[in-house]
């Protein structure tokens, strides 16, 4: 579904991604793990066009998407939840969710309403707080809001960047489980970037280990989880 070949992205003269090839399969969770600075976030940012690749191809549903704008890529069904619970704190919870569906508000108002109410069913705490400013939410609620903002665009591919960052283990569990359910029940494809390898490999179908901008391993998740030598070498445990 998403096919990446020999992708190179640079920040100045530093190659954050140095020839990466991978794919995300329809209806599956693919997780990208690796240490700090391995290029995980850059990978997602390059897919959603926040960074422009130096070379390589990104193919989505058999079409190249390199060179398109981020706002165009969302319209093609790729939604990105960036690192750090990215919500707009000065807007209300309700407005943050609406924002994700603004681009299709005119063409399909009924479905937008439906999608928003689905988000409230998925995360009832957001409905209780819908008039509050997003800045007043807890870390976990913010992450739920950021995911909802992405989901109301009805994506076929969800790019999720470190949803566990700074959250309590119980909240992480809940959020990861919700994403897992979505994937299994609605056929959503997920590309999950995580530093917390155990949690990520626990739900994922496929694991990709990045190291210094290259793919160090590309294995079924269960196999990667069991590979003690690999984990010791790249993740330190």
């Amino acid at each position, binding site marked *: 579904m998403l096919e990446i070949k020999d992708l190179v992205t640079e920040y100045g003269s530093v190659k954050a991604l140095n020839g990466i090839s991978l794919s995300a399969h329809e209806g599956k969770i693919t997780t990208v793990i690796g240490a700090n600075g391995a290029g995980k976030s850059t990978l997602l940012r390059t897919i959603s066009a*926040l960074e422009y690749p130096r070379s390589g191809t990104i193919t989505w549903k058999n079409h190249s998407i390199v060179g398109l704008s*981020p*706002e165009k890529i969302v319209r093609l069904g790729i939604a990105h939840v960036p690192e750090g619970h*990215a919500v*707009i704190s000065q807007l209300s919870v309700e407005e943050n969710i*609406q*924002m994700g569906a603004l681009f299709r508000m005119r063409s399909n108002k009924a479905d937008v309403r439906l999608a928003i109410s689905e988000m409230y069913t998925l995360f009832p705490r957001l409905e209780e707080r819908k008039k509050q400013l997003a800045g007043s939410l807890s870390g976990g609620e913010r992450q739920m809001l950021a995911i909802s903002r992405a989901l109301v665009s009805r994506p076929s591919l969800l790019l999720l960047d470190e949803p566990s960052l700074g959250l309590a283990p119980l909240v992480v569990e809940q959020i990861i489980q919700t994403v897992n359910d979505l994937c299994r029940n609605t056929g959503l494809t997920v590309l999950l970037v995580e530093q917390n390898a155990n949690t990520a490999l626990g739900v994922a179908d496929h694991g990709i280990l990045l190291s210094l901008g290259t793919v160090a391993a590309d294995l079924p998740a269960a196999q990667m989880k069991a590979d003690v030598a690999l984990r010791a070498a790249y993740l330190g445990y």
Partner: protein
Amino acid sequence: MDIFLSAIFAGTSRGAIYALAALGLVLVWRGAGVVNFAQMGQAMFTTYIASTLIAQNYSYWIAFVIALISGGALGALVDLLVMRPLSRKRSSSVLDSPAMRSTVPVIASLGILGVLQAGAGIIWAAEERGFPTPVNSLGLVINGKIMPFTAFDLFVMGTVFITLIATTYFFKGTGMGLAMRASALNPEVARLSGIRIGFVRTLSWVISGVASSLAGLLVTPSANLSPNTLDLILIIGFTAAVVGGLDSLLGSVIGGFALGLLVSFVNVYDAPEDIFLAILIVLLTVLIIRPQGILGSKEVRRV
């Protein structure tokens, strides 16, 4: 007492215009991150367009509407021809530092102001000309008593009031307004949500252009029209915006009315020469005591 009342009314009517000018500045500052010094140059230019149409015997209202439309168009042109190409020039190392990236558009806006003023001088000659009001600008007479305000004052206040209501509704009650607020607050998250921030930015230049053009049309009758007449409004409008808190629409409006009253009282009880001094004192006092302005938020401040 009569003098006091007429100072209040004149100040409110003046303040309404300053509020509009400040609103125009705040819109572009929030929407595009640019302090637009060309703003009143744009307004001057469109007032000249209206003046030319009126001189050719078109009705005031036709000229009024065409001036507002050209105000919007001029705003769009400034963004598309100058600001957008500037923000795209990433390869140049000079423009790469954050300080330069926010300074360059401001310098460019000063350049645009120069071009507009020189252009107006060339096209319409630099001599001053009058500009009419759509309604009587003598003291209104009700029951044989002369009121401390004119019909034009009422027209100004009504127009500005409608504009403020419409702008507030646009920002709080429509999807496009939400898109504009989101783009101003966090462009990256806005883009990831599918909002076309380039379009939104141009739109904020258009709305600001219309508001400024309206301010120009309303303020010019009290002075004469020349390429430099509106410089004063820019200074007062800018002060109003800073006093109100640069990123707050409501704050800019409050600042506008406050300055209108100040100017009017200085005019009546002191002398017109002291207006600038009074404005400077207010500006400095606000910057020292409450640098983020009356309603501004602290973090946005980067002066």
